[in-house]
């Protein structure tokens, strides 16, 4: 066999081998991608279902906020919250009712589907409202373990989801889903793990990560059916780095009340 022929044969074999390899790799990649896509689709469907089931046109409750610091000191605050609108496109007014020093301090949150929320705060003692700037949303919400961003609603469309697996939370079977904010969404968290109960699609737990470090954990408990919506009556946020936690207990919770649009404006906040 001439040298040229040998070379051609070797080249042909080599090309054939390479073709097989590419095909195999493509098959593997496509297969994996298909699996990931399916899982992602499932995750998104779960989250959409969860959001759909918890959707209400309006909401009102009285909350008790208890902050337990690392030394065990407890401070209480009470507020009433009213929300109008659906996920990602809602408005919310939160008014503190106790203690006396903070009574009538109010917060207006306007959520947008395509960008971070706008937030204003009203302080009656100086009769001033202040805008809480977008870049400040990672700031702790008045000494609690929630940040201003945590007060915003998580619209499904603002995140990418991946189903990580199954898990059990407080004896209930859950899906464990990873969410990553889309580019458009500015978040202090690089990703979150969300546990969704399989029986009623209620959220059971959220863990928030910043650069792969767990920073906050939100636990949902005392999940009850209120007007057909499975709702956690107790939310407990733990700040892992500070070793402190804040417990929010919802009372007198009502959904789909006839709330007026003009109650969710800066003018209304000042009233």
């Amino acid at each position, binding site marked *: 066999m001439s040298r040229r022929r040998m070379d051609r044969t070797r080249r042909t074999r080599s090309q054939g081998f390479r073709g097989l390899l590419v095909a195999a790799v493509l098959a593997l990649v496509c297969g994996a991608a298909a699996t990931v896509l399916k899982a992602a689709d499932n995750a998104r469907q779960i989250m959409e279902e969860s959001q759909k089931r918890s959707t209400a046109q309006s909401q009102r409750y009285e909350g008790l906020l208890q902050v337990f610091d690392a030394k065990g000191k407890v401070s209480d*605050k009470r507020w009433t919250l009213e929300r109008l609108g659906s996920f990602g496109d809602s408005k919310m007014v939160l008014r503190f009712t106790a203690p006396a020093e903070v009574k009538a301090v109010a917060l207006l949150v306007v959520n947008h589907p395509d960008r971070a929320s706008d937030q204003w705060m009203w302080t*009656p003692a*100086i009769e001033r409202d202040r805008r809480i700037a977008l870049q*400040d949303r990672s700031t702790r919400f008045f000494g609690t373990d929630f940040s201003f961003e945590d007060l915003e609603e998580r619209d499904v469309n603002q995140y990418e989801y991946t189903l990580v697996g199954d898990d059990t939370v407080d004896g209930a079977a859950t899906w464990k889903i990873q969410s990553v904010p889309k580019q458009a969404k500015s978040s202090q968290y690089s990703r979150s793990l969300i546990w969704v109960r399989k029986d009623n699609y209620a959220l059971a737990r959220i863990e928030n990560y910043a650069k792969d470090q767990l920073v906050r954990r939100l636990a949902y408990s005392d999940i009850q059916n209120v007007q057909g919506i499975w709702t956690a009556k107790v939310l407990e946020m733990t700040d892992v780095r500070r070793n402190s936690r804040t417990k929010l207990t919802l009372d007198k919770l009502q959904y789909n009340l006839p709330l007026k649009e003009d109650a969710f404006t800066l003018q209304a906040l000042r009233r």
Partner: protein
Amino acid sequence: MILLKLISWPYFRKHVLRTLLTTAGIVIGVAVFVGMHTANQSVLFGFNHTVDRIAGKTQLQVTAGETGFNEEVLETVQSAPSVAVAVPVIEAVVDTGIKGRGSLLVLGTDMTGDRSLRDYDLEEGDEAVIDDPLVFLAQPDSIILTREFAEANGFGVNSTLALGTVLGPRQFTVRGIMKSSGLSTAFGGNLAIMDIYAAQRMFGRGRTFDRIDLSVRDGHSVAEAQQELQRLLGPGFQVDSPAGRGRQFEAMTAAYSMMINISSVLALVIGMFIIYNSFSIAVTQRRSEIGILRALGASRSQIRWLFLGESAVTGIIGSAFGLLAGLVIARAIAASIGTLMRDVYGVAQRADEIATDPRTLGLAMLIGVITSVVAAWIPARQAAAVDPVQALQKGKYQVLSAGESRLRAGVAAVLVLVALVCLVGSGSRIVFYVGFLLVIAAALLLGPLLALGLARLLRPLLRAIRPVEGSLAADSLIQAPRRTSGSVAAVMLSLGLVVAFAGMSGASYNSIIDWMDGALNPDLFVSPSQDVVIRTLRFPQEMGQEIAAIPGVSRVQPVRNARIVYRGTPVMIVATDIQSLSQTVQRKPVVGDAETMWRETAAGRGLTVSDNLAELQKIRLGDTIEIPAPHGTIRLPVVAVVVDYSDQQGTILMDRTLFQQYWHDDSVNLFRVYLQPGATVPDVKARILEHYAGERQVFVLTNRELKEYILRVTDQWFSLSSVQIAVAVLVAILGIVNTLTVSITDRRRELGVLKAVGGLHAQIRGTIWLEALTIGALGLILGLGFGAVNLYYILEIVHRDIAGMRLDYVFPVRVALALVPTMLGAAFIAALWPAESAVRGSLVEALEYE
């Protein structure tokens, strides 16, 4: 080195006092240099430290001079893609009312976002200690203190303290204490943090912020962000790094730094003359020693290097002690310079620590050694030129030869002529300063000749006073002019400086008093702060009507003044009701006519500028000047130039409506109040205070009180003169003691003979005293003459480079008269010890030669 050890060291040991006096010359020069510069640097450091600490992680700051700007600007800044975090800030200096604690710098910030930029580093871990962050924001009386301030005054969390606000004294509740680091070290620890919106209310800011601090988003450079913000905000805003504030402060206080530089340089020159004098004397005294060395084979070069080596060693030792003394001086005067800066420039800062800059210390050391070596250069050359044969001819070497006198006179005449030419063509700054230096050089060259001539003139007078002692004293000076010339030159230089500064301060006083009489003629001034220069507290304009309604008040003029940045320099805007002003003050423009000035300025069609601004910024009548403001750029012609001393960098007078239009700011810094005929100042003052008691913080100054306040600040500004007088007196004493000590040593034989032939102790003493008084008188006469010329140049420097103010030339007669007894007294004191030394000297030793 061997020569230094074998020749110089024994000489130093034998003449300890003279060595100390020689060294003292350089000690004084270096000490004044280091003291003044270090104190000034400490104040600047204190300011920069405060800016730096407060800035935290701030990369850029948005300001509009001192005026502040509307809140809406914050949203514009926050919306810039290159901005990561932008938070508003208000700063106010308030009186704590706590004795010995001075003012408190209150930083108003938006705590919901500010912690991204500043680490408050609170006690007992994070914000739990702001007992409740929501309460902190909800209650406008909330305040956070530094640990230093809290501990020094016994405050803890939840304790209360009273602070002066525009709403009157208000009780604040301490809701947090910062640890002793970082931010808390700003303003010497006298720092407090409060919510910005509460601060707006407490300090009368309306809906404005002083500035916005921001950090730049990752992926963008600071320069990009700066350009983007400048484009978004327009030229009425400054977007600069926090260090830019320090640069502005330095620009604002440039006049003071210039004064300090002039004083320091002259102190060094004076020190140089003491050294020169000492070494000249040493050379003449050691002529025989030099002659022997030369006879033994020492080269001229070796002799020269021997003296230069001695001077270098003296310079090193003197500079080292000068550094230490300078630091002591700096510590003593830093606080008062800080107060002066606050009173003159209205920028509060503290200088609790001395900022020792190694570069300043190194430079001072170097200057000290170089000065010493330069001062000894001529004596060293003279020593090297000593003829061994002439070395034993005592006394001859101290005479100025006719040739040398002619040469000196000739060179001096040329220098004076060139200086005159420089003066005629002094459009150039360099030419002007060269001319000034030539005048100093001519004065130094002519000094010995004039001293000799004056001594001859004084001889009959001295003989008339005391026939024997007077003649001996005068002859001693006439026969040895070299011995005396250095001391006389040093005294002349120091007195020249004193006269110039005194003349300048006197001229400033006269001009300021004229200006005050013309411009500041209201009966009362209503201010929100005790220090009228502190502009961080402001009144709402509605107060004007309220004051006008008080019985006895006929007219109220609101004044808003604030520094803005004009052509990169901070200048003062004074906005008031020009129409009303034109009816109450008599101000004739130095350029332009009064009628046009009032009419055009009142109508907002023109601007009136101060003469110092016109001089410093080269503005002429009719020039259109552009003032960038937050809401547009003012482009108006200059319709008049007036004398105004409101600010050293210059003042722009405009109508209040114009200011409101371009700054959207109607707040007021000061109300000028005129009374109705028949109303008395105490009554109306009491009514105003009563009207606002418990409601607003109001300080009512009478016309006299305000003028006294301004003159007190002027006094502080010119307090530098008193330091210079002290240095001058010290220099005179040192120089005269030095000269007399040598004179007595030189004349031991003469004095011994005098005693041997029956001269009384009183006569010996009298001779020395008269000699000292004559040196003092010579220095005084020449000093006053030199001062007269120096004053002209200093006034020109003030006009051209320091403050742009044209001050009238008035020779400070009172200061000159006060200097006569001061300097003669100093001369007499300087003569006491040498006279006793002469009286107690051994007759045997004195006549040993005979």
